[in-house]
């Protein structure tokens, strides 16, 4: 809403400095998007009187002029000195009055006026045409000001074009502020002062009564709360008077003609959109021009006055003339067949209120937003319709030379009795936390247009308190409850005035839950393992699983968007891996070879026949490239399966999850992993706890990645369920252990897990530690298909220092047993 300061000032007294009003608007909840000083462009433009204009010695069309600008140009003693200006305008001559842009002026189009020499003659300013001042398109010569215009006046002030326009953004609950009257009321409440709004009145009503000329019927009262119509005759269409054109332009509309401008002006003034029909173009029914308001029928069309053919639905409210022919899209746009044109003589003036939901859907559906639809969709006050029709009629009389017929046809099916609200000032104080006196509260509300009935007693928090009955004005549909009045009082009182307090914590405790703390621990562990966190889109491409080679089994059905923005974000993800692979590809494409990322985020599994999907949090990581850059003392290694596995193992240890086995992943079920370099995590009770492995080269290719990527993905809920804070404490051994290394050659098929198992069980009680120190392969020395594993074993007894005999005995037994059970041989 564009608010003209000058216009508003005629309705309520404003502070001299517009910034004061802007600050008050911001304080009380009216957002001011911008403040535009329309006179600013004409700063340093003054009225001037041409004392002389003689031909330029070196030009056949330019003249050298002496222009009196009064006190705007003075000598050292303060005496006025005329300016010398070189001017090429054909109408320049001695004696005329002109606008003068002095040095320092910046005309529209960023045209800076500077001291200049024109063919050797100094020129100290410029006499301006209408176009140069941005007033009109006239550039045939300089603008001549009326005779007797005093030189040396500020031109914008002289021309009355100096105004400040505030562009105010209104919240959707304040339809009243989409009008100058509403804004003036708001200002009167802010500054606690009276408005002085005088509406024009019809001077003389002539001719037949409107009821004899027009009939109005509302077939769908749910769509139209009130319809009033007045008739004006013998309209003389022409340009608007200057004041009207100026106000309409200030409000943001281009002046068109007096009829259109009056309807726009009244809308900006009152917030009530009007529509003018050419009375003569409406069909007659029983000798009267007919208006029937009804819902459109399926398939019905109307040609709106912008020439477009519009397809309608039964949700659209339509104005028809005999009940059949559509003549306007109610509240949105008029019809081509009934519009005002050069030949219009008589006008039917519609001032009506249409239901906001229909208007909102119609204007959106047809992509037809207008000043009218914006107001209707926020709700227009039906109580005001008739008064607004009168104002418009009076202006038709004044500005269009029209004769106003007596009578207003008024159909008002939606009339509602005003609802009074019980206000307990004590409640206001209790909700605001501020000591706002009763009188002050009531004064704010009265200034906003509410009526207040005297006190009575009501209950508040077990006490009797004073209460009032407050009836809000009909133009404030947002005020229906005590809470709404609290807001009005608080915003006028000032939120800044409320003392800041913090609620006491006498009755509650808070903090993170155990699971929330453990999720932070997971984050910390990932970081400690060198992975950086990323947050990917939860949206995914519906082809992601297929690209990856991941089966849908166990992942439900996708959660599908009905209205996706882009095709590759049409579903919600069921695995974190595609998003992470895209990040890997992004990094590689941008020259970052080493990528170590993790994400802890949600995946969604839909279920057929079930409304809500299952939402789970997964943890996934990807590693690709080297373990770091080469340093003078650090040799990085290529990140491989064991880096990823090590991170998973570290995480399990941190969460104190024990006895998880890493089993070779079945290629039939893990199609996205490279066979032989992939493991499934299995808990003690046979639950799958996720996987770790190399992403299959085929899948990598599908995501545009050439390098190897190792990854893991674990369901967080299952991790949290298995996690414990601390394992039982084990006493630190005080007696020395005996370390023995065992190098044993076995077949490649013997796994590390199997070996460790056999060693542990063969070692008996005395074997307290089994650690794989090395694996060595050499066809000649070890044999084909064989490997040599070196194990560090520690023997220790809890109650005495072991003798070498005891150790030797235990170790020999272990070697014999292990070799037998694994087919291994001790390597010399």
């Amino acid at each position, binding site marked *: 809403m564009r608010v003209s300061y000058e216009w508003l000032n005629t309705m309520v007294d404003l502070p001299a400095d517009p910034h004061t009003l802007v600050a008050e608007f911001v304080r009380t909840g009216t957002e001011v998007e911008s403040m535009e000083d329309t006179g600013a462009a004409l700063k340093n433009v003054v009225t001037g009187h041409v004392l002389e204009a003689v031909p330029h010695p070196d030009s056949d069309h330019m003249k050298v002029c002496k222009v009196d600008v009064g006190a705007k140009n003075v000598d050292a003693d303060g005496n006025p000195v005329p300016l010398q200006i070189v001017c090429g305008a054909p109408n320049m001559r001695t004696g005329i009055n002109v606008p003068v842009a002095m040095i320092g002026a910046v005309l529209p189009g960023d045209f800076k006026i500077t001291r200049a020499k024109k063919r050797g003659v100094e020129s100290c300013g410029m006499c301006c045409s209408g176009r140069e001042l941005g007033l009109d398109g006239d550039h045939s010569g300089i603008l001549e000001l009326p005779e007797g215009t005093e030189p040396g006046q500020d031109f914008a002030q002289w021309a009355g074009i100096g105004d400040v326009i505030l562009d105010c953004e209104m919240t959707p609950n304040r339809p009243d502020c989409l009008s100058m009257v509403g804004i003036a009321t708001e200002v009167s409440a802010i500054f606690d002062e009276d408005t002085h709004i005088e509406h024009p009145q019809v001077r003389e009503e002539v001719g037949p009564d409107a009821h004899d000329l027009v009939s109005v019927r509302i077939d769908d009262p749910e769509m139209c709360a009130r319809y009033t119509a007045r008739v004006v005759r013998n309209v003389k269409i022409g340009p608007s008077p200057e004041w009207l054109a100026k106000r309409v332009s200030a409000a943001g509309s281009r002046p068109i003609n007096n009829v259109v401008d009056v309807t726009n002006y009244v809308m900006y003034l009152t917030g009530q959109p009007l529509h003018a029909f050419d009375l003569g173009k409406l069909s007659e029914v029983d000798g009267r021009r007919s208006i029937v308001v009804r819902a459109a029928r399926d398939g019905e069309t109307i040609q709106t006055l912008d020439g477009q053919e519009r397809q309608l639905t039964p949700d659209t409210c339509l104005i028809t003339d005999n009940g059949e022919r559509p003549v306007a899209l109610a509240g949105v746009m008029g019809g081509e067949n009934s519009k005002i044109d050069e030949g219009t003589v008589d006008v039917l003036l519609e001032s009506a209120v249409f239901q906001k939901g229909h208007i909102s*859907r119609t204007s*959106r559906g047809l992509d037809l937003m207008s000043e009218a639809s914006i107001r209707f969709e926020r709700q227009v006050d039906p109580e005001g319709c008739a008064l607004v029709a009168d104002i418009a009629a009076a202006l038709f009389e004044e500005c269009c030379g029209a004769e106003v017929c007596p009578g207003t046809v008024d159909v008002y099916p939606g009339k509602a009795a005003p609802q009074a609200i019980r206000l307990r000032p004590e409640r206001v104080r209790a909700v605001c936390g501020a000591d706002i006196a009763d009188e002050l509260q009531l004064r704010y509300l009265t200034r906003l247009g509410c009526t207040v009935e005297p006190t009575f007693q009501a209950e508040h928090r077990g006490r009797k308190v004073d209460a009032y009955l407050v009836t809000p004005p009909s133009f404030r549909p947002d005020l229906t409850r005590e809470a709404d009045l609290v807001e009005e009082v608080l*915003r006028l009182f000032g939120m800044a005035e409320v003392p800041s307090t913090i609620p006491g914590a006498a009755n509650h405790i808070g903090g993170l839950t155990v699971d929330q703390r453990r999720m932070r621990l997971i984050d910390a562990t990932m970081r400690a393992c060198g992975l950086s*966190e990323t947050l990917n*889109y939860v949206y995914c491409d519906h082809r992601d699983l297929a690209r990856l080679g991941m089966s849908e089994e166990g992942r439900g059905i996708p959660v599908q968007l009905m209205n996706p923005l882009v095709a590759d974000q049409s579903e919600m993800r069921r695995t974190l891996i595609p998003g992470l692979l895209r990040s890997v590809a*992004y990094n590689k494409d941008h020259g970052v070879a080493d990528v170590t990322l993790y994400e802890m985020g949600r995946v969604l599994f839909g279920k057929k026949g079930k409304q809500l999907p299952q939402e789970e949090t997964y943890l996934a990581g990807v590693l690709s490239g080297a*373990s770091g850059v080469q340093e003078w003392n650090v040799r990085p290694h290529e990140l491989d399966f064991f880096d990823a596995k090590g991170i998973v193992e570290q995480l399990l240890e941190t969460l104190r999850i024990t006895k998880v086995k890493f089993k070779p992943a079945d290629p039939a079920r893990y199609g996205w992993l490279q066979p032989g370099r992939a493991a499934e995590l299995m808990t003690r009770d046979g639950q799958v706890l996720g996987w770790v492995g190399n992403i299959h080269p085929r899948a990598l290719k599908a995501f545009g990645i050439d390098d190897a990527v190792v990854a893991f993905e674990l369901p967080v809920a299952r991790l949290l369920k298995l996690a414990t804070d601390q394992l039982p404490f084990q006493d630190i051994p005080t007696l020395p252990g005996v370390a023995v290394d065992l190098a044993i050659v076995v077949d490649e098929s013997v796994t590390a897990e199997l070996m460790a198992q056999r060693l542990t069980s063969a070692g008996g009680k005395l074997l307290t530690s089994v650690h794989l120190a090395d694996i060595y392969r050499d066809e000649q020395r070890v044999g084909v298909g064989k490997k040599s594993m070196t194990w560090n074993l520690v023997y220790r007894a809890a109650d005495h220092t072991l003798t070498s005999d005891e150790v030797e005995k235990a170790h020999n037994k272990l070697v014999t047993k292990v070799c037998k059970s694994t087919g291994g041989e001790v390597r010399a």
Partner: protein
Amino acid sequence: MAIVDDLKTIEEEAAAGIAGAADLAQLDQIRVAVTGKKGSLTSVLRGMGQLSKEERPVVGKLANEVRGRVEAALEARKAELAALELEAKIAADAVDVTLPGRRPAVGHQHLIKEIMQEAEDFFTGLGYVVEDGPYVDTTYYNFTALNAPEDHPSRSARDTFYVVDPSKDDNELLEAGHNTDRLGISELLLRTQTSGVQVHHMEAHKPPIYMICPGTVFRPDTADANHLPQFNQIEGLVVDEGITFGDLKGTLDAFTKAMFGEERATRYRPHFFPFTEPSCEVDVSCGVCHGEGCSFCKHTGWLEILGAGMVDPNVLENCGIDSERYTGFAFGIGAERVAALRYDLPDLRMLVTGDMRFLEQF
């Protein structure tokens, strides 16, 4: 007495040898040569037997004195030499300390998560709990229970992602990018705000309620420098007896200072939200110009960061809470907005690409 002379000679020679010993090994050689089992001094002492009864105590005393002095000299020289050797070793051990250190590879937390955890830490310190709810929710929890009118534009398919309802057969799929203004095309949606979590929480818990719900929300905004179709909100809710607008202010003043710095001021502007009444927007003073006005704050001196208000009585009643007895406040802040303000990010899309060069800066 020859033996006395011998002792003197031994002592003199030992003293000279000790003083001249260049290292611990040489010194040890001297020790062995003088006081060792076959050392010169030891042999002298061994020869004591041949002395007369009278001479023996005299010579014995002298010999012990000599031994004591020699041993003391050995110890002293040993300490001296050890210090010298340590010094030499240290000198040889010196490195160029300007060479880069051997750093363990440590990962970084995503800056959005960091901001959310900061907020969690602030509010848990005030006794709040942290909640999160479902991404896919019903229109009831996302809109209706929050007092959003049935025809509110935010319900349109242009502002909300609707989701196929697998319990229904008549789901309609729109072509990507062909959004309409039609309202409520499904009962299921991707939450557009975390406020629904507050409703779930109020249904499950009686007051007093002190909770925040940081989480991801979804809206059909095309990704560009200033928008993402998915972003993160931190919303909070307090419902208790006697909660005032002053409590809202005090809490958010402290929160703002915790997030942006002690010196930052706040400004409360009345505003409109369907689920709060009264409602306000909260600005924080610009950190660049400190309220003077600059291009960062569009010359206002203030940066908008929060929406807040007293919980609308309708919302409380929708959740079965007596709105006469209980009052409350709610607020919401965008984590991306905080990030953008803190770090002056030129493009929000950096937050979702997983660019290591970006992530490792935080």
